Structure formats: structure tokens, C-alpha cells
């Protein structure tokens, strides 16, 4: 039993690391080196503590664990409240896992202003973990939006050619979405007198009001996910961000939208969520098909993966709003799997980008000849992204499709074409980059992955197979929390269900 405030520790340890880096003094070179080391050690320690937290996590409970609550804003019923359940605990692990990987991945590729870079990543980790463990709406919003500051700087300072445009677009787009969330939060506060998420999960708001609130939530989360048609910031941000920035963006920040839907929209606004299911299904299906087609014609590796991310997120929103046990578990699984796989794919791009400084697909080709290990690693993640059985990608997409099929056959049918298209664009990418003859001399001179790079990829490869072969070690702990959300959704909308969690046809 863990008695000390472990969630606050995990949240603010990286902040402490950032302060430490801030205080580093001396020659530029040694400061840069020390900053890297401090950042790596801090993030590894944070990851270690989060593993320790997970070890103490009771997977059988559906409620929140390790709850901490302190008075925060006197006179207002708004508290500093943290806690995790089966849904959020995995996102915290994902964040703390990807941060040290990002630090390692930028070890050599970031050469200017290393100190500020590492500080930005430490801050980012604090914001991400804080957001996933916040149990108060205002606290949630603070972390949710604070992410913008470090990410804006990461894209803008260390990004590519068009970074200023991308950074502004990212910042303003997401800000525009989230300010409406703020108004919705205030409306909820005035209606119920509390911003405590567990309380709100069991109190019911008037249905008419829920619809407005849902639209405000949607404005915010849809931009984050991102859902079609508010996805256009993502390809720009991904292309211009440094490799590690893309990793965090794809790995964690995109999950904030899905997490928001699952944590806030569905349990707090179940009636409106049900009402808007056709809208979400429509947008999800368009996202899956449209962005897959767009991905097919991309010339830029990062842009292609960015579009594929949007397609995968389409599966997530489809699964979440199908609200059957399999579909929601599947959506969660897609998010986790995508967090690992897309992060790894961006790292794969980063590896060749570090060597050739271009992301243009046509500039590569034939890498299998001189970089066989790299080709093998890339293949694992490429296939996982496609959804090959035995990799993590398969489990999630399969569950989503199975679960959503019971709710809407048409939407599921259309979304399933995305699986085929996904295979098409990923295999086509792989073929163009890895196979064929080497036509460019500079490509020929590229060296295979280094030991550091293998160290970065090894845990991700292991995770991909672990999740693909033994998914229940992830699904079982999240099941009780998901069941709770579904039960609330069903009772609020009077959907009868068989004990197995299958909705009867007339219930829909």
C-alpha cells in the first residue's frame, strides 16, 4: 500500500528536474551535457516511480486510487485533486516511458540550446502526467492547456524550416478549442457547484444543457484528437517539430483528446454523448477513409505518418462512442498501441533524418542493403501500424471493429476499409524507403543504427509484441473503469444490455 502522495511526486519530479537544469552554470558545452544527463536521470527516475505506482495499483477496483486532495482556491469549491483509475494509469505510464526515450533520441540531434530543450521536455512531462491524473476539472484544464507552452517552444525553436507557421497554427488552433472547454467547465461549476470529476461522474445535468456542453467539449477534444475537419494543424506541427517533439505529440498529446472524451464527455454528459453518436461516427469514418487516402499520396515521411495518425484516431473516436465493452477497450488499446507505434515510427524517421537531413521519401530507397537492422526495426513498427496479428496494432483495431459492429454496421464497414488502406500506404512507404536499389550515393554511405538507437527502440519493440501477444495484461486492469463508464452511459440513456455487456438490438 502506497501512502505518500505518489501522483504528485510523479507529476512534479520532472519540474524539479527542469529547475535543476535551469540552475546549471558553466561552459556551454558542459551545461549542455549536464542538462542531457539530468533530464535523462530525472525522466528515468520518474518512469521508475510510475512503475512502482503501477505495481501498487489494484486492477480489480473501478474507482480512483492514490487519491490526493488539498484545498486550492479558497471560496471556490475547486480543489487540487489527483487520482488514477484503470483508464488513466496507462496514459501516465505511456508519458513517463516516452519522455526518457525522447531525451535519448535528441541526445545528438539537438545541438543548440540544449538546456532550454531539456527543460521544455521536463515541463511537458509534468503537464502530461498532471493532466492524466487530475480529478478536478479546473486542475485538468490547467494542465491540459499548459501543455501548449512547452510544445509551442519545442516546435518553434528546434523545428524545421516552416516552424514559425507550424508553431503558431498549433498554438492558436488548440487554444481556440480549449477556451470553449473553459466556459463549459464554468457552466458545469455553476450548475452543480463542484468541479470534482468523481462527483460529476455520478451527478446528472439537464439534457438540454448537456448538448451545449458536449459541443464545447467536442470543440476542445476534437482539435486535440484531432478529428476531421479540425486536423489540419497536425501534419504541419508534425513535419516541423523535431523528431522527439513529434514522438511526444503523436505518442501522448493526441491521446489527450481521446482521454478527454472517455474521462469527461461520456461520464459527465452521457445523454448528450448518446445524442451526438451519429455525428461522431460520421466524422470518424470520414477521418479514417479520407486521411488514409491523403496519406497514400504523401511525399514526406513525417506527413504520411501524421495522416496515418489521424486515421488511427478515427478508430479511437469510433470505438469510444460505440460504447460497448469491446469497442471502448479496443479504443483504449488503439490509443496505447498508437502511442508506442507512432512514436517509434517518428523515431525511425528521425534516425534517417539525422543522417541525410531530408524527409523526402524519394531521396531514400534500398536501405535494406546497408541498414539491415534498421530495416528490421522499421518493419516491426510498420506492420504494427498496419495491424498485423501478433502486434499491438491488431488487437485494438479488431476490438473496435467488433464492438462497433453491434452499434452501426455501416460505420464499421466503412471504417474497416481504413484497415486495407492503412496496409496500402504503410507498405508502399516501406517499399519506397527500404527496398529497391540504392540510387543515391549519400544513402549508400549511411550507417546502420547505433547502440544508443537500439537502446531506444528495444523497449518499444518488446512492448509492441507484448501488447500484441498478451493483450489481457493491459485490458484486464482497465476493464473495471471502462465498465463503470459504460454502465453509467447505459443507465442514463436506458439502454438494456445482456450481462455479457452486449446491447440488445432493440436497445439501440
Amino acid at each position, binding site marked *: 500500500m502506497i501512502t505518500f502522495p505518489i501522483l504528485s511526486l510523479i507529476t512534479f519530479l520532472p519540474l524539479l528536474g527542469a529547475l535543476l537544469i535551469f540552475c546549471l552554470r558553466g561552459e556551454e558545452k558542459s551545461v549542455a551535457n549536464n542538462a542531457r544527463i539530468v533530464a535523462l536521470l530525472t525522466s528515468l527516475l520518474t518512469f521508475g516511480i510510475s512503475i512502482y505506482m503501477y505495481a501498487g495499483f489494484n486492477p480489480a477496483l473501478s474507482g480512483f486510487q492514490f487519491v490526493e486532495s488539498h484545498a486550492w482556491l479558497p*471560496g471556490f469549491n475547486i480543489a487540487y485533486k489527483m487520482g488514477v483509475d484503470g483508464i488513466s494509469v496507462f496514459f501516465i505510464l505511456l508519458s513517463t516511458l516516452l519522455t526518457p526515450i525522447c531525451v535519448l533520441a535528441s541526445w545528438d540531434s539537438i545541438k543548440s540550446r540544449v538546456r532550454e530543450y531539456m527543460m521544455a521536455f521536463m515541463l511537458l512531462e509534468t503537464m502530461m502526467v498532471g493532466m492524466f491524473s487530475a480529478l478536478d476539472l479546473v486542475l485538468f484544464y490547467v494542465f491540459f492547456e499548459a501543455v501548449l*507552452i512547452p510544445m509551442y517552444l519545442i516546435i*518553434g*525553436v528546434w523545428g524545421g524550416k516552416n516552424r514559425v507557421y507550424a508553431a503558431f497554427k498549433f498554438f492558436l488552433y488548440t*487554444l481556440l478549442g480549449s*477556451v470553449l472547454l*473553459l*466556459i463549459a467547465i464554468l457552466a458545469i*461549476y455553476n450548475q452543480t457547484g463542484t468541479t470534482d470529476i468523481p462527483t460529476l461522474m455520478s451527478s446528472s445535468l439537464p439534457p438540454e444543457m448537456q448538448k451545449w456542453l458536449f459541443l464545447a467539449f467536442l470543440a476542445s477534444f476534437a482539435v486535440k484528437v484531432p478529428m476531421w475537419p479540425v486536423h489540419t494543424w497536425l501534419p504541419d506541427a508534425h513535419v516541423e517539430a523535431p523528431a522527439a517533439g513529434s514522438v511526444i505529440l503523436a505518442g501522448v498529446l493526441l491521446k489527450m483528446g481521446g482521454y478527454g472524451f472517455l474521462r469527461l464527455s461520456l461520464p459527465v454528459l452521457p445523454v448528450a454523448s448518446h445524442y451526438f453518436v451519429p455525428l461522431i461516427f460520421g466524422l470518424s469514418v470520414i477521418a479514417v477513409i479520407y486521411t488514409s487516402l491523403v496519406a497514400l499520396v504523401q511525399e514526406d515521411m513525417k506527413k504520411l505518418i501524421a495522416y496515418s495518425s489521424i486515421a488511427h484516431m478515427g478508430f479511437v473516436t469510433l470505438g469510444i462512442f460505440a460504447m460497448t465493452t469491446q469497442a471502448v477497450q479496443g479504443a483504449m488499446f488503439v490509443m496505447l498501441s498508437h502511442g508506442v507505434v507512432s512514436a517509434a515510427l517518428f523515431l525511425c524517421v528521425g534516425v534517417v533524418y539525422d543522417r541525410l537531413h531530408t524527409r523526402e521519401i524519394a531521396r531514400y530507397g534500398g536501405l535494406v542493403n546497408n541498414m539491415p537492422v534498421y530495416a528490421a526495426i522499421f518493419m516491426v513498427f510498420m506492420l504494427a501500424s498496419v495491424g498485423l496479428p501478433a502486434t499491438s496494432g491488431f488487437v485494438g483495431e479488431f476490438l473496435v471493429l467488433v464492438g462497433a459492429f453491434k452499434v452501426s454496421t455501416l460505420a464499421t464497414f466503412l471504417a474497416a476499409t481504413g484497415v486495407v488502406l492503412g496496409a496500402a500506404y504503410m507498405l508502399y512507404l516501406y517499399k519506397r524507403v527500404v527496398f529497391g536499389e540504392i540510387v543515391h550515393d549519400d544513402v549508400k554511405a549511411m550507417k546502420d543504427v547505433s547502440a544508443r538507437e537500439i537502446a531506444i527502440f528495444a523497449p518499444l519493440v518488446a512492448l509492441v509484441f507484448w501488447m500484441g501477444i498478451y493483450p489481457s495484461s493491459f485490458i484486464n486492469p482497465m476493464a473495471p473503469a471502462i465498465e463503470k463508464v459504460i454502465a453509467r452511459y447505459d443507465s442514463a440513456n436506458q439502454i438494456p444490455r445482456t450481462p455479457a455487456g452486449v446491447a440488445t438490438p432493440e436497445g439501440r
Partner: protein
Amino acid sequence: MTAFQFNDLLAALPEVKLAALALLLLLLAVLPKKQNYRLVSWLAVATLAFTGVLVACSHEGTAFGGMFVSDKFSIYMKLLALGGSAVSLVMATAYLERENVNRIEYPVLVLFATLGMMLMISANSLIALYMGLELQSLPLYVLAAIRRDSVRSTEAGLKYFVLGALSSGLFLYGASLVYGYSGSVDFPQIAGVLQGGSALLPGVVTGMVLVLAALAFKISAVPFHMWAPDVYEGAPTPVTAFFAIAPKVAAIALLTRVLTVPFGGMAAEWQQVIVAISVLSMLLGAVAAVVQTNIKRLLAYSSIGHMGYALVGLAAASAAGVQAVVIYMTIYAVMGAGAFSVVLMMKKDGKMVEEIGDLAGLGKSQPLLAFAMAVLMFSMAGIPPLAGFFGKLFVFQAAVAAGLYTLAVVGVLTSVVAAYYYIRIVKVMYFEEPRTAGFDAARDRGLNFVLAAATLAVLVFIVVPAPVLTSAHAAALALLP
């Protein structure tokens, strides 16, 4: 009116002492042959600090036959105004000495203006209000034009004076209408009359709107904002910094008191006016600032926008709204002091520069200064976890609680537009390469201290919001129990 009693002065003791000390300081300052600006300035800061202590432990109650009131609201706002004045004096010292405008009149004028602000904040009748307003304004006109040989500075002073006189005229006309229809100049009595059925006489409403317009002038809210950008740009930077903080605090305090106490019964009437002014200010503050290249002009538009946000709280016409206004002004004052400290440090090769482009590459050449400025800009944009976010949170909370959803939505949307120009400054500092070497090293301890303190306050507000929140709450309850 009752006969004068000494006890009557107790509530106004800080003002009396400040007036006496300011006169004394003026005497002391002109006596020596060689005038010592630095000494006078520090003595003025000490005077303000002393007055602050007096205010903090002053009596609550009324004085001068009820024309003057001291309550928790006035105490809080006075402390804020005193702090703003003192800080702007500290910030000014080095600049004025360097630019050769270090006249000893400067600190003394600031003292008198501050006295005027305190009277404004405590005014409990239309006459006391007008007296405070003028006592505050006249020194400000002189200060704007303190650089006599600069065309811009004198133009700023003149412009400010002419428009200020116009607003005084508006006020007097409005006040006389209110007096004529309500039969009294005392706030509580006006309130009593207006509570009754006769409240909707068109004369009272007209008078109230005129008074409102005059006060909107003072806080540079749209559509009475025209003077602000020109005066901000033309006046010497320390004067601009002074204008941006303390007088705004005082004017907002006055506006709050006037609307909630004498016109409290007419909330439904003035609410529409405040909503309109607020929306226009937020819109103009956001949109017009986007195209500015001069940082002082930009901050002028930014402050117009900030006044719009503060008025959102006032529009709620509730205790929570007043509390939000008080919190907003506190945070605004801190951010303003910090931002103007940075502007005062923008000196290249011995010359002050004011273009936003001059900040280019500051992140590399002076990382600490750039960091402070970035924190302040993100805070002004209202991005959590910085203090500026909480200022906006509370005003929007008050607006939503009062059912003003449209106002709140317009507010957050304009804040996104405004965020554009704040993060543009961050972009200039961090994403661009330095064009020339950085700014000259600022060896001014006072200025560095103000900047460091403001940045720190903005950063740690999230951890210790309680002192500001609870005292703002008490202040709000003094007006709207």
C-alpha cells in the same frame, strides 16, 4: 452636515498624512541648491510605503460627514495603487537620470497623483469623487509632458489634457443630472432614492451614462480609448508604466464603487452599457494590437483589452464579479509592472529602443530577461498555469454565474486573438536570430528587482492563490454584502 470633529479624520488618516508628507517633501526638495533627484525619489517611495502601512491598519468608517469612506474594498485597492506608484517610481529612477529628465517634481507629482487616487477610491459622494479624480488627473497631465523639449512628450501631455478635460466635463454634466434627479450627491442617499420606484427617470439614466463615459475615459475603455496609444507611446516610458498601473487600479475601483453603491439599484440599466464597453474593449484590444510594431503601443492596446476583461467581472453585477475584478486588477498590475520593466531595459548602445523587432534573439543573448518576458507574455495571454489565467478564470466565472454566456464566449474568443500577439513577442525573442548584440547590461538593481519579483509572482500564484483570493473576497463583500 454635522460639525467637524477630530474623530472624523481617523478614517482618512493615511490621506491626511500623505498630503502633509508630500508637501513636506516638496519643500525639502526645492531647498538645497543642488537638487538631489535620487534622494527625493527614494524618500517618495518611503512615503508611499509608510502610507501603505497606515492604510493597512487604518480604521474603517466614514469621514468628512460621510463624503469619504474607508472599508475593506478601499483598503485593498489603495494598497494596490500605492504599490503601483511606488514600483513605478523605483522603475523610473535610472531611466530619468539617464535621459536627463530627473526633475525633483517627478516624485512629488507622483505622490500627489497617488493621493488623488486614494481619494477616488474612498470617495463616497459625487463631489469627493470629482475632487479625487481631478487631483489625480492634473499631475498626470504634467507627468505626460515632463520631457518639455520632446515634441512627442508634450503632444502626449496636451492630448491627454484636452481629452481628460472633456471627460471631466462629461462627468460634471452627468453628476449634475444625477444630483438634480436624485436630490443628493451622497452615494448612500442616491442609492436609497434609486432603490425606489422613481429609479428609471430618464434624467438619472442619462446622468449615469455620462458618468460612466467619463470613467471609461480614465480606464481607456473603448470607445473612449483614443488617447491611450498616443499617450503611451509619447510619454517617457516610466511615465507610461506609471499610467498603466496605479491610475487604472484607482479608476476601476472608483467605477466599481459608483456602479455598485449609488447605482446598485440600476444594475439592469448599466449592465448593458458595461457589457458593450467590455466587448468593444476586448475586441479592439485584441485586433488592433496585432498590427503594432512599437512595444509601448502594443502594451497600450493590450491594456485596453485587459480593461475589457476586468469589466467582464463588473458586468456580472455580483459580489463574485467584484471579487473577480479585484483579483484581475491585482494580477494585471503585477504583469504590467513586469512587462514595463522589460521595456525599460530595452537599451541598445546607450539609446532606448521601442520596436518589437529589437527583441529579436533575446532568448540567446539574454536568456534570463527573455525568460521573464516570455512568462509575462504567456501570462497576459491567459495561458495556465500562470497568474494571468486565473485573472481571466474568475472574471469569466462571475460572468457565467450571472448568465452572461455570450459575453464570456466573446471574451475567451478574443483572448485567442490576443494570444497571437503575445506569443508573437515570444516568437521574436526565441525563434529569431539576434540581429545585433543584446541590450546593454541593466545595472539598475531596482528595475531588476521589480522584474524578478513580478515574474516570480506570476509563476507562483498558482501555488499560493489564497491571500489574494481571500482579501479580494473580503473587499468585494464590503461593497456588496
